[in-house]
């Protein structure tokens, strides 16, 4: 696969980055120039496109040198598409002119104060010759359309497949004893002998349509995924198939191998620290704080060298033990240039009997849960610190709410 050295002509705006991919907004009609030698040498063009429409009602059509190539609906958010280029155009040795046309644009009321005509976001492009990849991209889109239709029709027995698949890369952990809020013992009883079962790149491919239909593979291991001996291969597979991997890590498994495996891969890496100081960290996990921040700095440097495709999300679960670290956690996020600080709720276990003495602190799970008023205070402070330190906040307490648009903001 070759990254496409394209020339952005009319209808494209300046480069931007939205914490997922670098992109340019395109207007309702936009024109790209593609190098003649790439057009002659490749069969397909893959493109990342972001649409703000959640019902596939925004459609795009592409024409190369006046010849229609394809027309299809766009999926909400970022998705990877593949277009057959066919026989090169009749434009001599000059670049081919690829024209994008949208049936409608992102309504101006959702981006007040921005007078541009914003259609959709065009992310990275790449030429390729892989017919299977092209067919998989078509399968992916057709399935996503069917899945959306079945959901809106209220169907319960589905002919479609999920667009997010949860996976379980590794069942063992390097933090022993386990983190104070981890329900390790109960989970390992549930897992039974499956703790030993292999989940690698071949396993994911064996999921067949469940793998092909997935836009994201979300790792939900009770274990540290970076320890998997097939970690590199799993990420390579995701990259090859235009899929994003969501991976949570405790931040204590960064080595030359894992950093190299991560840098340049389409991964949203959730780093669960929950602390900004050695003392608080010791109360939640262990005494290994000193290695973590330098490793995160190194990871940041390596991912920048590789084009910043890897995104670093720093997780903070507000609890009584760590709420005093909130502002320092924002400073830490700024220091390591994290893409986002993630506020994640402590799992409501009802009436847990989890009590642990760690780092000179008595952690009682039930007592660590903040009341809703205290959580709201965390939100208020987070808004404040987000502005002060220029750190974006991704609030997972908002799970299930519709995305906020500029027009709905106070």
């Amino acid at each position, binding site marked *: 696969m070759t990254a496409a050295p394209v020339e952005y002509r009319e209808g494209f705006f300046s480069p931007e980055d939205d914490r997922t991919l670098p992109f340019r907004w395109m207007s309702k009609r936009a024109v790209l120039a593609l190098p003649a030698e790439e057009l002659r040498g490749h069969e397909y063009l893959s493109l990342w496109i972001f649409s*703000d*429409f*959640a*019902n*596939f*009602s925004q459609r795009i059509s592409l024409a190369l040198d006046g010849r229609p190539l394809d*027309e299809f*609906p766009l999926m909400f958010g970022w998705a990877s598409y593949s277009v057959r280029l066919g026989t090169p155009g009749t434009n001599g040795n000059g670049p081919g002119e690829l024209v994008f046309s949208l049936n409608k*644009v992102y*309504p101006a*009321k*959702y981006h007040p104060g921005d007078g541009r005509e914003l259609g959709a976001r065009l992310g990275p492009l790449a030429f390729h010759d892989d017919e299977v990849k092209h067919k998989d991209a*078509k399968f992916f*889109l*057709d399935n996503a*359309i*069917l899945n*959306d*239709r*079945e*959901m*809106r029709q*209220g*169907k*319960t*027995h*589905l002919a479609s*497949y*999920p*667009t*997010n*698949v*949860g*996976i*379980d890369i590794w069942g063992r952990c390097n933090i022993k004893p386990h983190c104070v809020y981890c329900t390790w*013992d109960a*989970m*390992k*009883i*549930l*897992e*039974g*002998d*499956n703790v030993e*079962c292999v989940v690698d790149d071949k396993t994911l491919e064996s*999921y067949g349509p*469940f793998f092909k239909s997935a836009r994201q593979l*979300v790792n*939900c*291991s*009770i274990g540290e995924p970076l320890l998997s001996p097939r970690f590199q291969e799993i990420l390579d597979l995701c990259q090859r198939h235009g899929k994003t991997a969501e991976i949570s890590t405790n931040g204590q498994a960064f080595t030359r191998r894992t950093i190299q495996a991560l840098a340049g891969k389409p991964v949203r890496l959730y780093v669960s620290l929950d602390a900004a100081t050695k003392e608080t960290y010791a109360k939640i996990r262990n005494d290994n704080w000193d290695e973590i921040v330098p490793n995160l700095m190194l990871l940041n440097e390596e991912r920048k060298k590789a084009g910043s495709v890897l995104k670093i999300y720093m997780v903070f679960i507000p609890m009584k033990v760590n709420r005093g670290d909130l502002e320092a956690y924002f400073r830490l996020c700024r220091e390591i240039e994290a893409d986002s600080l993630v506020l994640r*709720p402590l799992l*409501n*276990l*009802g*009436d847990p009997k989890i009590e642990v003495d760690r780092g000179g602190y008595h952690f009682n799970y039930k007592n660590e849960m903040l009341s*809703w008023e205290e959580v709201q205070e965390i939100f208020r402070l987070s808004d404040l610190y987000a502005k002060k330190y220029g750190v974006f906040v991704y609030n997972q307490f908002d*799970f*299930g709410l*519709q995305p906020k648009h500029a027009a709905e903001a106070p």
Partner: protein
Amino acid sequence: MNETPTASPLDDPEDLGFSGLPLCREPWESFYILRRGILPCCHGNPIIAPMTDWEAAWNGPQIQEIRDCLSRGKLSSYCLVSLGCPIVQRFLREKNKGKGDEAVAPPRRSPVVLAINRLLFRIPGKIHHALRDRRNRRKYS
């Protein structure tokens, strides 16, 4: 890539298409194949099938019931015990407004049920794990 979806109103240039969606989209859009079992969403609890039954579980009776309730704007009995879910927490907060924090806790199990649970599952499970760990330690040492 030419299929036209049936979502409506497709022609409204101002409509971003967020209306007409179920209470939660997860059991249609997501599916978790985990060592501990199959989950219909990232906040789901308990498991709905063993890991090996993932193919059948996608359209199994339990997930169909969850989808049915959500498409009718209701939380299923499964969702209501998945207390880690922020949607469930919002629902419980709204339902129990003014009753204090205790309201978001789950219904408590009776001591008899807890004792049976402990005897039948937790203690044998711990014994099984201890034996397995000892076996593995011997194997790898």
